[in-house]
C-alpha cells in the first residue's frame, strides 16, 4: 500500500489507495475504495441528520423536523451524539483524503478559471489531479467547520459539560455554532450540487468507479498519473 508514485515526479499524494484504471472500452477508473465510500456516507448521513436536527432547534419554523427524530427531547439527545459520530467519521476521512487535498500549483489556475467552469467551458480549465481546487476547498472548509462545530458543540452540551464553561461562553458558543452550521450547510449544498451537476460523479461514491471519460474530463492529471503508474494498462 503506497501512495507514492516513484515515476512521474508529480505530487505522490494525488493518487490514493485503490485508485486504478481498467482499460475499456469502456474505460473505467476506480476512484474510491469500499472503505472510503462507507466512511463518506457515514459522514454524509451524519451531516444531513445533524443539519436536520440542528435546523429544528435553530429556528422554530423548522421545529417540526424534530418529528424525524422522535420528538424534541430525542432530537436534543441525538444531535450531539450524531455530532460525535460525524466528528470521528470525518476524522478518519480526513486522514484518508488530506494528502490528496494538499494545495497544488494548478489550483490557482483552476480557481482563476472557475467562472469558465460554471459557464460550462470546462475545456478552459487546467488539468487537475484527483481533486480540483473546488473539491479541496470543500474538504478544508468541512474540516475547519467541523472542528469549530464540535468545539462549540461541546460547550453547548449541557448534559455533560455544563460546569466547564460560563454561561457567557456558552452564549458565544451557541452563536458560533449557529453561524458555522449555516456555513457548513452552504458548503454542503455546494458539494451536493457539484455532485449532481457534474454527471457521473455520484457513481464515484456509490459504485466507487467513474468512467474514463469522466476522469479524462474532470481529473485528467490524475488519470494520466494512474495510467503512467507501474502496472497500469498503458505501461
Amino acid at each position, binding site marked *: 500500500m503506497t501512495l507514492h508514485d516513484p515515476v512521474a515526479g508529480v505530487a505522490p499524494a494525488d493518487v490514493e489507495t485503490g485508485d486504478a484504471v481498467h482499460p475499456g472500452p469502456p474505460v473505467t477508473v476506480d476512484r474510491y475504495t469500499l472503505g472510503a465510500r462507507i466512511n463518506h456516507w457515514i459522514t454524509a448521513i451524519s451531516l444531513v441528520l445533524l443539519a436536520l436536527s440542528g435546523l429544528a432547534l435553530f429556528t422554530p419554523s423548522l421545529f417540526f423536523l424534530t418529528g424525524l427524530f422522535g420528538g424534541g427531547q430525542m432530537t436534543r439527545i441525538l444531535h450531539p451524539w450524531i455530532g460525535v459520530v460525524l466528528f470521528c467519521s470525518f476524522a478518519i476521512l480526513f486522514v484518508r483524503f488530506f494528502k490528496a487535498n494538499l494545495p497544488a500549483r494548478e489550483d490557482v489556475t483552476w480557481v482563476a478559471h472557475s467562472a469558465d467552469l460554471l459557464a460550462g467551458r470546462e475545456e478552459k480549465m487546467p488539468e487537475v489531479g484527483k481533486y480540483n481546487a473546488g473539491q479541496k476547498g470543500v474538504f478544508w472548509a468541512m474540516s475547519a467547520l467541523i472542528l469549530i462545530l464540535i468545539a462549540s458543540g461541546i460547550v453547548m452540551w449541557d448534559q455533560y459539560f455544563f460546569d466547564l464553561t460560563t454561561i457567557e461562553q456558552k452564549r458565544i458558543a*451557541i452563536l458560533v455554532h449557529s453561524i458555522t452550521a449555516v456555513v457548513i450547510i452552504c458548503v454542503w449544498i455546494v458539494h451536493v450540487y457539484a455532485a449532481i451537476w457534474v454527471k457521473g460523479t455520484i457513481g464515484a461514491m456509490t459504485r466507487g468507479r467513474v468512467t474514463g471519460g469522466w476522469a479524462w474530463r474532470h481529473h485528467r492529471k490524475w488519470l494520466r498519473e494512474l495510467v503512467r503508474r507501474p502496472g497500469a494498462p498503458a505501461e
Partner: protein
Amino acid sequence: MFPPIPNPTLPPPEPKFGEKDIMRRSASNVTPPAERLTEVAKLIDVTKCIGCKACQAACLEWNNLTEEVGFNHGVYENPMDLTPDTFTLMRFTEWVNPETENLEWLIRKDGCMHCEDPGCLKACPSPGAIVQYSNGIVDFQHENCIGCGYCIKGCPFDIPRISKVDHTAYKCTLCSDRVAVGQGPACQKACPTQAIVFGTKDEMKDWADFRIKDLKSRGFENAGLYDPQGVGGTHVMYVLHHADKPSIYAGLPDNPRISPIVETWKGVTKYLGLAVMGFAAAAGALHYFVAGPNKVTEEDEENAEKLTEGKAPPPPADPTQSQGHAP
C-alpha cells in the same frame, strides 16, 4: 401591614387564566389576547428580609420538590445555588458600607424575575415550552420542554436549571396554580416579615414607594425599586437599600438585558442563516436551470481510451496558454 390574602376556598374556583391569556409562547407566533389581564407582581423588600428561608421551605413544600441534603460550605446559603428543585434561594452577602464603615448583611431572595421581555422564552426553540401569560407570569410547560438549555443562555439572571432526572428546565412558576385561584405564591404567603408581598404590579409599585420613603427617612439615600427596564420591567421586583448598586446583592445585574449575543443568535443569525442557505440552494438550482448539467462527452471517453491504450492523448493543458484554444 399589607393585607393578607384570604385563605383559599375549598373547593377552589376554576383557574382564572389559562391558554386564552397567553401573550407570548416560545417558538410560536401567537395573537396576543385582545385584553390584557391585570399585571401581577411579587415585591421582595430586601430591607425587611431576615433571611429565614421560609420562602425556600414553602416553595419546596408547595411544589413537592425534594432537594438533596447538602453540606455546609462555610456560608449560610443552602443549597449553594438554584437547582431544578430549588426555585428560590436566599443569597447572603456581608458588605461593609464604605461610607459608614458599618457591616451590612445583604440577604436577597433569588429566583425567576418573570421579565416582561423574557430571555428564556426568546431563546427557547420548542413551541409552547415557555409561555407568558398576559398577567406577566412566565411559566414553563414541561411536556413541551426538550431540555436543550437554551433558556439558561437566554436568561439575564441565570435562573433556569435543567433536571438531571427528566431533562426539562425548572424555575419559579410564580405559583401560577395558586395565582390562578386568587392566592399569592407560596413564598409570599409564608414570608414572616412580609418582605415578600404580592399583588398587581401597580399596587406593588405603590407599596415600594411607601417602603422607599421609610428607608430614606432612615438614612438610606439610595433606596429604590429594582424593576429593570432592560428586560421591559419584571414581575418580581426588589426594594433595595442601595438601588444604585444592585450588584452588591450577590451579583444582581446592574443593567440586565437579554445578552446581545442571544439577540444576535435568535435574531439576525436566524433570518440571515435561513436566507443564506436558501440562497445557496436557489443559486444551485438556478445554475442548473441556466447552465444545464455538466455531462461527460463521447470525446472524453475516447480520449480516456486512447490514453489507456497508450495512444497519444491530447497533451496536458498548459495553464500558461492563452484561453480559447481547445486542445
